[in-house]
């Protein structure tokens, strides 16, 4: 019965592509999202000028000094350990002042990420963002986190769920926790969502991120639906999120199984630039990204006890998966070029 209802609900958002204004333009008119428009030359977004540039571009001495002062207070706070970290190890001070600014050039200039449907993400309260995983290295997770902070009016922090392998890695594990990640397990996910956090999950896991380039944009199996049962138990909406562009950053055209075994990694990729160009091969290709947040799938109408009902969980998992897959196909059909958009 539930399956039928959800089936009916699903039909609507897929067929009608919601087009929402992205940049309120200075020219009075509104730039609309260009993907669907025929005949628009695939060039850079027209007006990057009016957006408030960071202080560095303006030689205004007062602003420059203010920035220096802010940087110094930040440095001092860090030096004296005068900041708060939550139980998961999330360091909001570091994330807002160092990690996100470091990712911003990649987000704005390199991948030129465009977000669609940001209004589907609630301003307050828990929600579960479920997205497709790709790109050999999990840059899609980082970019989604930047998107939800920079392009969402409430500047939300995305609390991503990561594999245990990440937390085993020296350096990366500690940094991931500071950036807001925690282990992908039901207790952590439910605790975060109950406390009103926005949680991001990539249920394909290594199957998704490490799939060969020829399988790009083909969603892999969605785990065992653990994320759905977590959402059901906490009654938060599931927001399907489709990321286009991440597949092209490191096209994985082959892999070296022996090296993967040696390092204990799930795969050792060969991309057109890696490993024969060495560290240069780590530079991601500058693909043009689109991140679309779909209509939330509400779970509060369902009984939390349904989390124990495998049929409900499978149906919901499938619904989320199908929504993302269809959105991906639609975004891809509207895209002309992987690098120009």
């Amino acid at each position, binding site marked *: 019965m539930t399956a039928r209802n959800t089936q009916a609900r699903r039909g609507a958002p897929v067929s009608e592509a919601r087009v929402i204004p992205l940049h309120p333009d200075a020219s009075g008119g509104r730039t609309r999202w260009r993907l669907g428009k025929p005949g628009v030359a695939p060039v850079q977004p027209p007006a990057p000028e009016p957006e408030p540039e960071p202080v560095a571009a303006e030689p205004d001495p007062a602003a420059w*000094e203010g920035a220096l002062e802010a940087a110094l207070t930040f*440095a001092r706070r860090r030096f*004296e*350990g005068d900041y708060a970290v939550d139980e998961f*190890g999330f360091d909001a001070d570091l994330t807002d002042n160092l990690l996100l600014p470091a990712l911003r050039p990649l987000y704005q200039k390199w991948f030129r990420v465009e977000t669609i449907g940001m209004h589907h993400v609630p301003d307050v309260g828990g929600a579960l963002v479920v997205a497709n995983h790709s790109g050999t290295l999990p840059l899609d997770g980082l970019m989604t986190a930047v998107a939800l902070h920079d392009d969402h009016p409430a500047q939300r922090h995305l609390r991503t769920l990561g594999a245990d392998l990440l937390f085993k890695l020296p350096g990366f594990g500690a940094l991931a926790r500071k950036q807001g990640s925690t282990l992908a397990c039901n*207790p*952590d996910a439910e605790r975060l969502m109950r406390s009103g956090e926005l949680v991001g999950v990539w249920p394909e896991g290594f199957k998704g991120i490490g799939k060969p380039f020829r399988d790009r944009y083909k969603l892999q199996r969605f785990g065992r639906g653990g994320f759905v049962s977590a959402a059901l138990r906490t009654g938060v909406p599931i927001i399907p999120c489709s990321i286009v562009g991440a597949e092209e950053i490191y096209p994985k055209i082959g892999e070296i199984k022996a090296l993967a075994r040696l390092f204990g990694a799930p795969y050792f990729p060969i991309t057109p630039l890696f490993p024969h160009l060495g560290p240069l091969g780590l530079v991601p290709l500058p693909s043009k990204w689109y991140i679309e947040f779909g209509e939330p799938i509400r779970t509060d109408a369902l009984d939390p006890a349904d989390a124990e009902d495998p049929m409900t969980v499978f149906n919901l998992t499938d619904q989320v998966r199908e929504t993302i897959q269809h959105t991906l196909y639609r975004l891809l059909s509207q895209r002309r070029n992987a690098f120009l958009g």
Partner: protein
Amino acid sequence: MTPSVVLVTGVSRFLGGHLAARLAANPDIDRVLGVDTVPPPRDLLRRMGRAEFVRADIRNPLIAKVISHASVDTVVHASLSANPGSSGGRTAMKEMNVIGTMQLLAACQKADTVKRVVLKSTSAVYGSSPRDPALFDETMVPKDLPSGGYAKDAVEIEGYLRGFARRRPDVAVTVLRFANFIGPRIDTVFTRYFALPVVPTVLGYDARVQLLHEEDALAVLERAASHEIPGTFNVAADGVLLLSQAIRRAGRVAVPLPSAAVGPVSRIFRSARLVDFSPEQMRLLNFGRVVDNTRLRTQFGFTPRWTTMQAFDDYVRGRALRPVVSAEQIESVERGVLSLARTLR
């Protein structure tokens, strides 16, 4: 409700001794017996007031006589030690912890008067690994069982206590899983570690550290001894500090060492009798451990007065740890950079 005769083990150390002192100050309790192998230091003995010190080894069956003669009704087992240095080596520590508990429980089982047993356990029973959830609640079991040392002792001891509770269902058993203690007076591996001027850490790891103020620990033990609250409870302060952050708050300088160098360096520290870190404590410094204290608030009825950060700051103040780089120096550097920027403009 209020016990009439309380027996406290491990009274020559901080927690046991001060707990005995607090219980002795309670006029509703008739007798307080303190047991340990060595007599408490003189100032602690003075604090203990009317509490009686019994020099006995809990590994010896003599302890059964002490319990039955005094008609003890409440036993607080607070002697579990995590510090091999002060208990004469690792094997002696294990012997004291595990065999001592077995003997003590055997004595309690024989004594009909015993109605309440409180165990000072540790949150180390949850282990510490990258595959664990961020917070442990009392129902969780660790992914990687602690492989040795104090944590393994505590796991075994809790097992014995469960067996005891099955055999004596009339006894209320309280297990308190404490986080690492901190405070101006208590002496633990952690308080020594953060007092080092240069603090070695593991490169690439930054553990989440959850602490508990010594006064909160004493209050919890006292409450467990004087009220009947059976069950297992995590006892830890709210909030966490990152290891790097704690070191900075103490004004120390962290020296990250590559994992391979950690073993030899910690051996040097052990032989120099500075800090004795066991392997499971090293794992704690890698991955950290945070427990959920909801049950402590709701069922046990206790809210820690100090958060982790406040408890740590109290320790730094109480020990009068002098920062290696002082706040004034940082401030002057900050002012210097700003004025330099103004002149360059």
